[in-house]
């Protein structure tokens, strides 16, 4: 029997979704297996791997490091990116278009290239292996998300709003704080979430810059898999999936996140 084009499209869509989501399911299921190796379907049910991960100082250290980098980089990128986007959107700087391209470059540049470039730069400046250097690297890769979100929000804003605030007696900073910031906040939150997740997830840049003592969660997952897989990797991955899923759900409920992607 011949299928209508509409049905074919529907089935293709479902096939793609299943193909994309299946690995996630596999990882989550594997985390509960009682075996000491990754296997599907899981043999038996246990939470032991979660307990192991959450009591292992190596994993906990990596989680702490990743959260520090993600929160720190997002906060710094939020401040810098919003300021840059504001200056660009209000044409306060010459060559605003060129500047936009420059700030957005890390988004299109291969991460490995950024990693190698920063490695050489840090070797020259003595920042290699320092937490500050790593934090700055994460700022570089997260700032484009903030700038993009802020630029989009600012473009949708009537420039007369801030002028109205000024004429009504607000100073420049007051006008920004009382009018512009509340109006671009949903966009900034969306950008910050992207930035946070990007930092939390980053391997290709981080792996070049990390010191022997300090490592991040995704880099530790990466190296653990290389050394041989036990379900603790699946357990930590499951925790990551739950955490990011939870954040995205919250953001969607609160701000209508999908409008900013």
């Amino acid at each position, binding site marked *: 029997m011949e299928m209508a084009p509409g049905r074919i499209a529907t089935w293709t869509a479902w096939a793609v979704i299943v193909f994309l989501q299946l690995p996630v399911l596999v990882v989550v299921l594997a985390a509960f297996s009682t075996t000491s190796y990754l296997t599907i379907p899981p043999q038996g049910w246990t939470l032991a791997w979660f307990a192991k991960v959450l009591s292992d100082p190596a994993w906990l250290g990596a989680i702490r490091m990743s959260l520090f980098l993600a929160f720190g980089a997002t906060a710094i990128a939020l401040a810098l990116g919003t300021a840059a986007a504001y200056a660009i959107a209000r044409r306060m700087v010459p060559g605003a278009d060129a500047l936009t391209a420059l700030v957005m470059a890390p988004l299109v540049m291969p991460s490995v290239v950024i990693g190698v470039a920063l490695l050489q730069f840090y070797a020259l400046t003595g920042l290699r292996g320092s937490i500050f250097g790593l934090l700055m690297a994460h700022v570089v890769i997260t700032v484009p998300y903030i700038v993009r979100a802020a630029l989009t929000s600012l473009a949708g804003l009537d420039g007369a709003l801030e002028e109205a*605030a000024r004429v*009504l*007696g*607000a100073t420049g900073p*007051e006008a920004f704080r009382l*009018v512009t910031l509340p109006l671009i906040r949903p966009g900034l939150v969306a950008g910050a979430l992207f930035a946070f997740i990007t930092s939390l997830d980053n391997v290709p840049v981080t792996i070049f810059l990390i010191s022997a003592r300090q490592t991040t969660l995704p880099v530790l997952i990466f190296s653990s898999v290389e050394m041989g897989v036990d379900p603790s990797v699946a357990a930590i991955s499951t925790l990551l999936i739950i955490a990011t899923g939870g954040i995205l759900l919250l953001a969607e409920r609160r701000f209508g996140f999908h409008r900013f992607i």
Partner: protein
Amino acid sequence: MDAPLAARGCALSALAFERVGKSYGATEVVRDVSLSVAEGEFVALLGPSGCGKTTLLRMVAGLVAPSTGRVLIGAQDVTALSPDKRGVGLVFQSYALFPHLTVFENVAFGLRRQRVSGAVLSERVEAALAMVRLPGLAARRPSELSGGQQQRVAIARAIAPRPRVLLFDEPLSNLDAQLRDEMQIELKRLQRSLGITTLFVTHDQSEALSMADRVCVMAHGVVQQFDTPEAVYHRPATAFVAGFIGRPNRLAGRIAADGRIDLGGGVLLAAGEAGATGTAVEAIIRQEAIAITGDGDGLPGTIVLRAFNGARVQYVVRLAEGVELVAETASSGAHSGLEPGTPVRLAIAPGAVFALPVA
């Protein structure tokens, strides 16, 4: 005895531009404008888009810095003063209401900047909303209001802090025709009762003529005429004003040897000020300045078309091959029922004809 005129003008003026100019690169948008607005006066800045009227308005608010000259509010030179220190009220074309704040907080915005709070704040917000006849909506968001209501909130927000000067930037252009007529009268009444010196930018001549005490007609960044609505209408100072105000006929012509305008086809028209013989001009003749007479003196012509629009009847009259103009008369008048093909005579006062040199 009498103080010099200039000094007297200074003492009386609530708002003044002194030799103000503005250029963006090589483009001059405002050229050497000097204006003085009296206390409590309602002045309309009228002109086509790009004539510099909005730039002048924004200079008063401090949103545009003049390249040359000074802006004074009362006796104070505000040229270098930032917008928040000027104490003016501005109603934007887009209204620019704060969408994240309620109507109450929008109106309270300027008052809060003046550290007004508590019962006094509520009282003054309510008073401003009552002024624009919009009570009971204080808790709404701007998005929940109609265009006309948003307009009123914008006006209430501008007047609540009791500004020294009130500025309007084409505030009625986003309203439909009937609401616009209502608001014209209401705004004028409001301005009278507040007595605040007002500058009103518009490209709509009927708005400017009906609302303002004085009208400043601008073109190409230059003040063409600054006078009462009656004077601007009846005694246009420049050919531009003559062509911009009223409903003008525009006909191509050339200055003849006797100083009249030759419109071609043997039609010659006496003009107030003509210019050098042979100059190519555009003859500007107000529709309402042309009197239709059945016979006797005047230019001979033939009715081509009749259009009845209620109060007036408009005729297209052919004076010669290729020379046609529009004349109008009251629909209750003697010559309101002329059919196409009827020969008529047109009496045109020389003072109502202007010759605009063609560039």
